[in-house]
């Protein structure tokens, strides 16, 4: 963990919310409702099938994923930064670090209620 977090990584989730986010991401990976990587996350936002976007705050350089907040604002999709890309990669079920991922929509999914609750929690960070 970096002692100094990039100020551009906003909104940054605290420890408790980070655990909730990573847990939902792991379940989404199991349910095949997860897109891993900045390019795939960009595509889900362009297609309008994204529920929320999670990005890693310790990305170096951080600018390679700062286009995602712009797209998320255009599409009215919540986005949030988590402290560690290593932890994000582990939650996605990938051996490599993951700097960005996107949870996709599925009407009949069992995760819908949890995703909705998490979206509300993420949006509260912006107030």
């Amino acid at each position, binding site marked *: 963990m970096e002692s100094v977090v990039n100020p551009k990584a906003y909104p940054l989730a605290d420890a408790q919310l980070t655990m909730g986010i990573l847990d939902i991401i792991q379940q989404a990976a199991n349910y095949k409702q997860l897109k891993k990587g900045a390019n795939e996350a960009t595509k889900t936002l362009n297609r309008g099938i994204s529920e929320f976007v999670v990005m890693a705050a310790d990305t170096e350089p951080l600018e*390679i994923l*700062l286009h995602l907040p712009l797209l998320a604002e255009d599409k009215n999709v919540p986005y949030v930064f988590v402290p560690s890309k290593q932890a994000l990669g582990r939650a996605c079920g990938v051996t490599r670090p993951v700097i960005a991922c996107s949870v996709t929509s599925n009407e009949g999914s069992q995760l819908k209620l949890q995703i909705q609750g998490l979206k509300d929690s993420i949006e509260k960070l912006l107030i």
Partner: protein
Amino acid sequence: MLVLFETPAGFALFKVLDEGKLDKVEDLWKEFTTSDSARKVVELKAFNKFENTSDALSAATLIIDSKPSKGLRKFLQKHCEGETLAVADSKLGNAIKEKLKIDCLHNSAVMELMRGLRNQLTELITGLGAQDLGPMSLGLSHSLSRYKLKFSPEKVDTMIIQAIGLLDDLDKELNTYAMRVREWYGWHFPELTKIVTDNIQYAKVVKMMGNRVNAVNLDFSEILSDEELETQLKEAAVISMGTEVSDLDLSNIRELCDQVLALSEYRAQLYDYLRSRMNTIAPNLTALVGELVGARLIAHGGSLLNLAKQPGSTIQILGAEKALFRALKTKHSTPKYGLIYHASLIGKASQKHKGKISRSLAAKTALAIRYDALGDGEDNSIGTESRLKLETRLQVLEGRELGKSAGSTKGKPKIEVYEKDRKKGTGALTTPAKTYNPAADLVLTEETPKKSELASKKRKHNEVETEPLAEPAEEAIQEDGDQEDRKKKKKKNKESKEAPAGEGDGEKKKKKKSKEVEEEPVVAAASEVKKKKKKSDADGEDVAMQTEESGKKEKKKKKKAC
């Protein structure tokens, strides 16, 4: 609770008199249908008026960026002690909370309240009429738009888009003009086209020479560095088959040459400008794919920021949309590259690896573009490092090709070994053929009884020959044997023809044999054995057949014994 409301005239601060109304968000709009009911819910507490339009513009631009201006901060500090503030922008609320330690609130009730306030704005704020609000609002919006057009940082790449468009147009125009010069002057001096192949040199030569008869006296060394070309030119001028031209024609051709030279100079100047702008605005992209390809990508994407929002796969096929949609419609293979085909890295790669290098280059290009568009620094370290990685990968791919060819040579003996195994297999196939020999042996065993029969016949002949020489006792035994054999044969024949007749004959023969027994006691034992056989034969045909077979065996045994 206080409500911060932004107006073109200034910032308004309302006090919520009845906060219970906010709980019923769906019915809140009813309270703002009339000014009297609205006054019961909220009242104006303070108003911070803008002094002039520039003050309004600066405050509005800061609000757009979600930052509180200095005047707003003072205004809030003065009136918001210990109160909760409702704001229309959550980011602005966060900023106010950080700087002024004022609790800020932003939710659906606040948004509904804002709508009500906007509906009754002129009634709630005294001294601010509808007639005054309209032109104020219009003036502010015009100022704001003008400000955006002038100082928007996203607009800097429009210079690159226009420059690359002009550069491509200049290339086409320059080519057209140069071809026109060649064709026009070709009427007068057609051989010159093949002697001087460069367009710029051709224009300079034509401008200096004018009429071809002047070529002999002129020195073209400044234009043509090759002396042989100059010699060829002067020789061709003497024997040229072109037509004569007047001075008026030549002056027009010279003016066209001036145009060509001027355009080429401007193109070089524009290219230098484009290179400097690209290195300033997108240094990493320039380091990775070059100025021209980078500029064309930005132009095709619309702007650098738009290009930054594209994934790597889109950047790979930018410029090949027609081929892409044709492939999607006909379900053929999609294109591998678009504008980035002209990057030097893809030019270096062999045909086999162009697709892989294209995909890798597009991915790294996407990262470089995002850093250029969204980052503040102007270093190109990401571009140079990515380029080194890609070049290393290209070398690895090319090297692995050699490794594969070496492997194929190693594979040949393996193939031979495999063929040997097949040969061994064919060898194994011959083994069952060897096992077939016992069958042949069976065939040979069937042939031996015939030989034995032939031998028996020979033996009979031998017996016949030896009869006169044999002793009297032996003669008697032999004669009896022969007779017995003949009788047996007859019996067999009869039995085979008719069963009952055979039986009758058997009985008669039995009688005869009994007489013989009486006559010759020496053969009695043999005759008794024979009788037993006959009796068994008489029992049944099947049994007789079996006994016949057994008899045959016994005969064989006897012959062998003999």
